[in-house]
């Protein structure tokens, strides 16, 4: 066996077919919503896209070009798209709706079997700071997953701005807020509680920080946030969530939605509403998204943006194998009847059938060949003779 680099995978025909089917359903829905697909290079400068990306530095594949510049294999599509949008597209100050399906690369430190290259299908809505745009992301995520055939899934929605404001209100400085956020990011709630108890806080404030961990569930969660937050920006975040809930109801997708304000997908990347997508039978999120108003600034444009990405490999795991395989016909011919075979193949292909043309003298095992295809036609020997086995 010839080995592949750690975390790299081949896609064999069956999986390729399934993948293509799922990908095109997602893409079709995104196109229906007016999103335009774009492509960007696999390699980007580390200095710009690499550092702007939400992906941790140690997960980046880095290499040098001939001039000695550090390059990265794109670890996500959001940063490259922000680069394109900031430099080329955002001229007329209108919101821009872009989509992509592309392979991204993230080095895996542990367990070589995990994919280091995987495909993401996603959208970015750039230049729209309204909650309507956030709602559109959630609604489009739901619609495209349904279109792809996924039945059982849930989106959990949080708000990075709310967490930040609540922590700053109680702890006073951004640095202390960061320190506490880190426990959430690391999913260490035991550490979070111990840290809160170790801080010199009034019992009300300390209680608020502990109660924060329970802000999970249905829409009633938004009501409960009101007891915790006092500052203006925090209240704005709650208004956004309320508005978002109305939008979700108008899209008629409330059945897929839960709220979880403890959701922290990244230390600093997201700035507002954010969400993760879960399917019951897969142990990892199959997609995530949110508002990242700071990113465009890094490319010299100060405007808001929001988006989401679906991980195709995990979505495939959630959907399972496709039942139907597309039938492939085979025409086995000998040189005497070659032209006849070509014409038959052409006619069948025009009908949209998949046809393999195979010179019979190139087949060593006829049985293996007839087993492989759903339908085999023999055009062998002189015209008019019976097919030869």
């Amino acid at each position, binding site marked *: 066996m010839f080995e592949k680099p750690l975390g790299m995978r081949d896609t064999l025909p069956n999986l390729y077919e399934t993948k293509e089917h799922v990908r095109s359903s997602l893409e079709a829905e995104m196109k229906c919503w007016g999103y335009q697909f774009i492509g960007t290079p696999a390699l980007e400068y580390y200095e710009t896209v690499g550092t702007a990306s939400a992906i941790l530095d140690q997960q980046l594949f880095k290499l040098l070009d001939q001039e000695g510049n550090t390059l990265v294999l794109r670890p996500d599509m959001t940063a490259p798209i922000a680069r394109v949008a900031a430099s080329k597209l955002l001229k007329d100050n209108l919101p821009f709706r872009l989509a992509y399906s592309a392979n991204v690369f993230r080095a895996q430190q542990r367990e070589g079997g995990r994919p280091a290259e995987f495909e993401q299908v996603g959208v970015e809505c750039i230049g729209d700071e309204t909650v309507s745009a956030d709602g559109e992301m959630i609604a489009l995520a739901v619609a495209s997953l349904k279109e792809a055939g996924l039945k059982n899934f849930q989106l959990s929605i949080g708000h990075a701005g709310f967490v930040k404001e609540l922590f700053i209100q109680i702890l006073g400085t951004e640095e202390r807020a960061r320190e506490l956020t880190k426990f959430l990011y690391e*999913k260490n709630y035991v550490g979070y509680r111990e840290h809160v108890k170790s801080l010199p806080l009034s019992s009300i404030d300390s209680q608020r920080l502990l109660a924060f961990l329970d802000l999970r*569930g249905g829409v009633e969660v938004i009501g409960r946030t009101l007891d915790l937050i006092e500052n203006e920006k925090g209240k704005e975040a709650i208004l956004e969530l309320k508005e978002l809930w109305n939008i979700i109801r108008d899209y008629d997708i409330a059945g897929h939605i839960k709220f*979880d304000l403890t959701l922290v997908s990244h230390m600093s990347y997201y700035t507002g509403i954010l969400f993760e997508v879960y399917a019951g039978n897969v*142990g990892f999120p199959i997609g995530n998204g949110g508002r990242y108003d700071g990113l465009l600034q890094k490319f010299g444009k100060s405007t808001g943006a929001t988006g989401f990405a679906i991980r195709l490999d995990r979505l495939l795991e959630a959907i399972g194998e496709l039942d139907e395989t597309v039938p492939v016909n085979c025409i086995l011919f000998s040189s005497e009847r070659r032209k006849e075979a070509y014409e038959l193949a052409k006619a069948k292909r025009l009908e949209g059938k998949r046809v393999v043309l195979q010179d019979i003298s190139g087949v060593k095992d006829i049985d293996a060949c007839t087993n492989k295809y759903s339908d085999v036609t023999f055009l062998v020997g002189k015209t008019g003779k019976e097919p030869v086995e």
Partner: protein
Amino acid sequence: MSEVLTIAMPKGRIFEEASDLLRKAGYRLPPEFDDSRKLIIDVEEENFRFILSKPTDVATYVEHGVADLGIAGKDVLLEEERDVYELLDLKISACYLAVAGLPGTKMNDVAPKIATKYPNVAAAFFREQGEQVEIIKLNGSIELAPLIGLSDRIVDIVSTGRTLKENGLVEYETITPITSRLIVNPVSYRIKDERISEIVNALSEVI
């Protein structure tokens, strides 16, 4: 009742204390639960499925979502750094991670050797101390290493200190206290949130 909840339990030392705790929290576990040799135990009246696994594997099962919940030692969580939520300190199976070695010895100046089951924890600890060490990963009988000259020190969990004493070793430094934690898969935590909150609340009452 809602869907089945799968709980990964560590075999051995922690198992008994963990099942006692679940019983105290009001869950009816059958009496044969404790000495069963089965690896999968269904407790239908509670709608639980228990998976009995090696303690170090609990976090792996939970990370991959084949178990919704798990009970795992903090030592395992520190070593494995799995992507799971650490929800509760169950305060059972208390012990600590420590550096030990033969009494009255100094660490080799050049490249002291450290034998341990916890290479990541040990490496991080000595790095923070600015010590340059060579880590030797062993899978058991760690106390043997200094006795036969394999290592200068060991990093291991200590509960009563008896094993160390019986092998003529002494503690040099405490790294961190260890107890068992309730961990949960990030997807289960969101999708099965109501049942999981119920368990968390029931357990918090009796810790």
